[in-house]
């Protein structure tokens, strides 16, 4: 602390710019008579209130280290120490640069040390200053957690006075930014200590306590689960929050209480069909999206609402008819408005600042609204210029907006009808493809997932996308480190291969390369494996395609099939594999790859007797294809398989309780009778 006292070169260099009076104030801090020092500090206090220039001057002149020194000296009178803390608090109220200077002088440990004093007035002055420093964006939050004794001590100070309550809760609310912070505060009894403050007679204390709960509960199951069981003055916490959402309460309070309940709901602590969610939280959040609210409130309201209803279709349905939400959101795209540009520069600046935030919030909310219900999707796409807005959102400079726009597009792409109509009309695939060329993974995942839907067989966008060289792009996605991107890449290829031309199929196999294909078949991610098998199955459809692919890659494919059937895999994976085998059995020449492979035939036999009907069905289908009458060499195949005991098995299966399996076995048996 003493080290940064009196840095002479600095003082001299700026001396000329500084008024003599400021100089005088600092000099008095060094007076030999403690009484004069005290008077000097008091005069300084009165001089700096509301005077940013004066504050900056004093800081430059080195007042801060001296004030901190006086504050920490045990020989200083309590009054002097308190006045020092007050002046420091006042300096902190200035610009961000002031805060930086204060933090650089190690004001935080000094003030935290001060909290150990027993005098309440002094403690309050220290806390007030700490509060101002900590709520500034330039202060590293971590400084609150460096000393492990600080949080428990702050908790213990909560009972001291209304002021300590206000400042401490405000510090917590601003400094709880990560799950680790949540845990630290939770473990030190934040919930029990702060809950009673929710019914404090002081508005400020109530508000800050509420904010604490919203940051504590955010994506935190442990906190949320604890909160539902907390009683405040005999009342459940959720009911206290509900009361704070009443429409005559300050907007900030309504919004924050709605956030608390949203987080508790998302953590599973409150059911989504609970009245406090359906009839209170949701309507409150919709109100926050209305034009009457400030832009910041509208952003927060929309984001919170999107988060609340994301997993629940019923909430989505209710929100979609509440207060014209869908058309209300359209207004989010009208900033800066043409009026503001002409009339008011300040307003324009404000609008511009929030325009991106508003747009991304609206996209998020649309995405959430439309994620399940077809009618809602229709309503969204019918909103004025909606598709145009998404299209231009996809190419906005702000990454946040792009991501939200593609999320929205993805949500809407789940609709068959929209894929057929509005998606095609607005050629959304173009900006989407552009987005895929160069974007962070987060965006890529969403964009490629959307592309999967656009490549569905019935989608009219499929053709133009194919022509735009999408195959290479998708194949490169399958090599990504991110499982989500690999899935999306292979999934899109699978969709593309469905009932595709021979040319496309060949192109896919060529671009992907058999090596990559087989690498994917041993992918640790089951989803990737399933979609790869799906791709294979789609490639191996219609006889000429089967024969062609099998003639060039038959050996590897049979190897892969064997490997999977022998490995530890889920029923779904094995079923998919048996279906591939059945497709191979449908080929003209490809059949022989199975017929000549006794090991494979034994495997088929095994699965025909499997306990799972799905596997039995797929295996029987395979045999049925092999013994199909009208094809060349069917007689020999029938004989061979009969010799291997397949007829007995088929016969047994005609008695199966599953009607599908029974039918399939009977059809197969008929091949022998004909």
């Amino acid at each position: 602390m003493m080290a940064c006292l009196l840095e002479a070169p600095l003082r001299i260099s700026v001396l000329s710019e500084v008024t003599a009076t400021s100089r005088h104030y600092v000099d008095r801090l060094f007076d030999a008579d403690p009484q004069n020092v005290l008077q000097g500090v008091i005069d300084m206090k009165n001089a700096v209130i509301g005077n940013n220039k004066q504050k900056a001057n004093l800081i430059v002149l080195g007042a801060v280290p001296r004030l901190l020194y006086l504050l920490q000296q045990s020989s200083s009178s309590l009054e002097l120490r308190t006045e020092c803390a007050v002046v420091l608090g006042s300096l902190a109220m200035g610009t961000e640069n002031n805060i930086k200077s204060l933090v650089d002088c190690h004001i935080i440990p000094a003030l935290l040390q001060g909290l150990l004093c027993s005098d309440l007035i002094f403690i309050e002055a220290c806390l007030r200053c700490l509060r101002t420093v900590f709520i500034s964006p330039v202060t590293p939050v971590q400084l609150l957690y460096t000393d492990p004794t600080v949080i428990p001590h702050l908790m213990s100070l909560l009972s001291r006075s209304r002021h300590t309550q206000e400042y401490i809760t405000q510090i917590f609310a601003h400094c709880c930014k990560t799950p680790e912070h949540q845990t630290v505060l939770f473990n030190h009894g934040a919930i029990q200590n702060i809950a009673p403050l929710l019914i404090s007679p002081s508005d400020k204390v109530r508000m800050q306590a509420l904010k604490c709960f919203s940051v504590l509960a955010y994506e935190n199951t442990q906190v949320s689960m604890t909160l539902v069981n907390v009683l405040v003055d005999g009342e459940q916490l959720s009911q206290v929050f509900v009361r704070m959402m009443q429409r005559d309460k300050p907007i900030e309070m309504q919004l924050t209480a709605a956030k608390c309940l949203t987080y508790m709901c998302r953590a599973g602590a409150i059911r989504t069909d609970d009245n406090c969610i359906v009839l209170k939280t949701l309507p409150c959040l919709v109100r926050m999206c209305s034009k009457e609210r400030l832009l910041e409130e509208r952003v927060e309201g929309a984001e919170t609402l999107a988060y609340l209803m994301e997993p629940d279709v019923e909430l989505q349905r209710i929100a979609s008819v509440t207060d014209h939400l869908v058309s209300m959101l359209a207004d989010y795209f009208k900033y800066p408005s043409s009026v503001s540009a002409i009339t008011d520069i300040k307003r324009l600046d404000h609008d511009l600042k929030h325009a991106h935030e508003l747009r991304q919030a609206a996209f998020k909310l649309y995405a959430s609204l439309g994620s399940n219900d077809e009618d809602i999707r229709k309503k969204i796409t019918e909103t004025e210029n909606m598709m145009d807005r998404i299209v231009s959102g996809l190419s906005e400079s702000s990454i946040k907006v792009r991501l939200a726009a593609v999320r929205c597009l993805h949500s809407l792409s789940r609709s068959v009808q929209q894929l057929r109509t509005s998606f095609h009309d607005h050629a959304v695939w173009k900006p989407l493809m552009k987005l895929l060329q160069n974007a962070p993974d987060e965006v890529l995942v969403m964009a490629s997932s959307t592309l999967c839907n656009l490549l569905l067989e019935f989608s009219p966008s499929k053709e133009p996308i194919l022509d735009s060289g999408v195959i290479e792009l998708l194949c490169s996605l399958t090599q990504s480190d991110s499982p989500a991107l690999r899935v999306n890449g292979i999934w899109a290829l699978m969709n593309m291969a469905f009932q595709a031309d021979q040319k496309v199929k060949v192109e896919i196999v060529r671009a992907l390369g058999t090596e990559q294909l087989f690498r994917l078949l041993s992918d640790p991610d089951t989803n990737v494996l399933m979609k790869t098998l799906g791709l294979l199955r789609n490639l191996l459809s219609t006889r000429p395609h089967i024969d062609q692919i099998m003639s060039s890659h038959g050996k590897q494919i049979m190897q892969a099939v064997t490997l999977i059937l022998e490995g530890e895999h889920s029923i779904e994976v094995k079923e998919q594999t048996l279906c591939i085998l059945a497709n191979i059995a449908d080929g003209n020449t490809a059949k022989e790859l199975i017929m000549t492979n006794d090991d494979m035939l034994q495997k088929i036999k095994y699965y025909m007797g499997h306990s799972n009907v799905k596997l039995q069905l797929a295996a029987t289908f395979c045999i049925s294809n092999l013994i199909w009458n009208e094809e060349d060499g069917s007689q020999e195949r029938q004989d061979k398989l009969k010799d291997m005991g397949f007829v007995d098995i088929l016969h047994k299966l005609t008695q199966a309780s599953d009607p599908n399996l029974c039918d399939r076995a009977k059809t197969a048996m008929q091949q022998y009778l004909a």
Partner: protein
Amino acid sequence: MDSVELCGPAVPDFSTHPGLAAGVAVLQLAASRYLALSEQEKELNQRLRSLYPAVSDQETPLPRSWSPKDKFSYIGLSQNNLRVHYKGHGKTPKDAASVRATHSIPAACGVYYFEVKIISKGRDGYMGIGLSAQGVNMNRLPGWDKHSYGYHGDDGHSFCSSGTGQPYGPTFTTGDVIGCCVNLINNTCFYTKNGHSLGIAFTDLPPNLYPTVGLQTPGEVVDANFGQHPFVFDIEDYMREWRTKIQAQIDCFPIGEREGEWQAMIQKMVASYLVHHSYCATAEAFAKSTDQAVHEELASIKNRQKIQKLVLSGRMGEAIETTQQLYPSLLERNSDLLFMLKVRQFIEMVNGTDSEVRCLGGRSPKSQDSYPGSPRLFNSPVHKASNVITDHLCFPLFPGFDSNYCNGVSSSKGHTSAHSHKSCPPTIPSPEPGVLNGSRGQQTNVSAEVEMEVDHFSNGVSESSSNGFLNGSSTHGIDLEECDADMEVDSAQSKRQLCGGSQAAIERMIQFGRELQSMSEHLRRERGKNSANKKMLKDAFSLLAYSDPWNSPVGYQLDSIQREPVCSTLNSAILETHNLPKQPPLALAVGQAAQCLSLMARTGSGSCAFASVDDYLH
């Protein structure tokens, strides 16, 4: 007397019940139905009162059910006119049918809300819920015509005075509860479905709309909830928001542009109020500390204070005497005032509080029911309960406040032009006849038309009065100091007896009554009929018709609170002779604000609902 009770269900007239012969069972059924009904009615009254406190149910009754008179013939009503069913053919839109509520929505609601539950969607569910003005064709669904607005279940569209709807909300069907909220502040309307607000449906609504429902196909049945049951939607919460908005508007209203102007005005008002009510010490201190001049001699204030104290402690005889002494010509010139004071004196005699009878009675004047202190502030709950009397003398909120002052014309004459009188009828309407049912009729029989013979009653009265208590009749002169000194209320409140129980006092009272009677006749001859005076006298004399006047239907006159209007009228009259305003500017301002609010209610400004003057008087 609370106005709401007026609209309570009439007791079923069992004598005309067709099933009387059938026996007791029917009667019991009817009785239990009546009980259930009155339970519901009670809940309804309670809810309406708490939702719409600013609505005067006498001036503008609230909708409570569908009107059996204001409906198309295809509509059937049941369940106390709350259930609506369709009974037409329902083949084409020409078979549509609507029903309106019994009353239109009063603007003083501020925010009005009702709900309709779909009991059955019937064949096609062509149901419309909404609003329409009186006279709109009932052979239609709400929304299709001018001044008609509706939300339709089959397509979820809103119809704003047009045959073609606009996409508005979801469709609705059996089991759904649809709410309709009219905001009379910004003249908009929104609907709710199962407790969820669907957003604004209509703007620029005209005034005086009726809740309306329309049905179009067989089997359609809906139930209305005008407040009989709790609402599904949280309308109170919505109202809270608007109350806050209106109050914020009031709080932010710009006042006095020049520095200190506002404060000076407030100080003036407070000072004048103190002087008016003769709080001389306080007034002096206040004037001194705020550096103001008092526009009345201190002695004069003290005189008024003396008289007021006499009136308020029930010592009317002395009050009249003192007034005549201090203001010799006042009562001579103002014979109506004198008459009123004398009538009050008569009442105080009956009460046993007037000095003349007190001297005759045995009880110490101190122990009598003396008035507990100074004039009340503008509004005490007791005041409200006593609204029944006439509008002029007992304007409840402000002693002596005359309704003519609503325009701020502080004429020194009692009555201003007919014009202002017409535009601003008194806030407190006179009670409807029959309010006091049986007892009022009885009282009228006793004292109406025929000149009352006081003697006629005296027998009955003396029977109930005891004959003792003559011993204390020593004529000790009661001076004011004694009265000033203690004003404690007699907590024991032993049996109250006519004129304090003294025979001599009763005789004096009867004699006084005769004098009063002849004064009344004299006044009538000289100045023509005066219905207010006549009623006053009639009411006062009616006290003698009961063996226990305090517990009689006219007993309210004996309540000490009734001294207040007399007191303030006298005070105002005295002030007028000094060319001072007959009521303090503060009361005038408060009265003006109250009048403005009721004027707003009448002219359809809904914000009056959330700006009660009482809220600002703590």
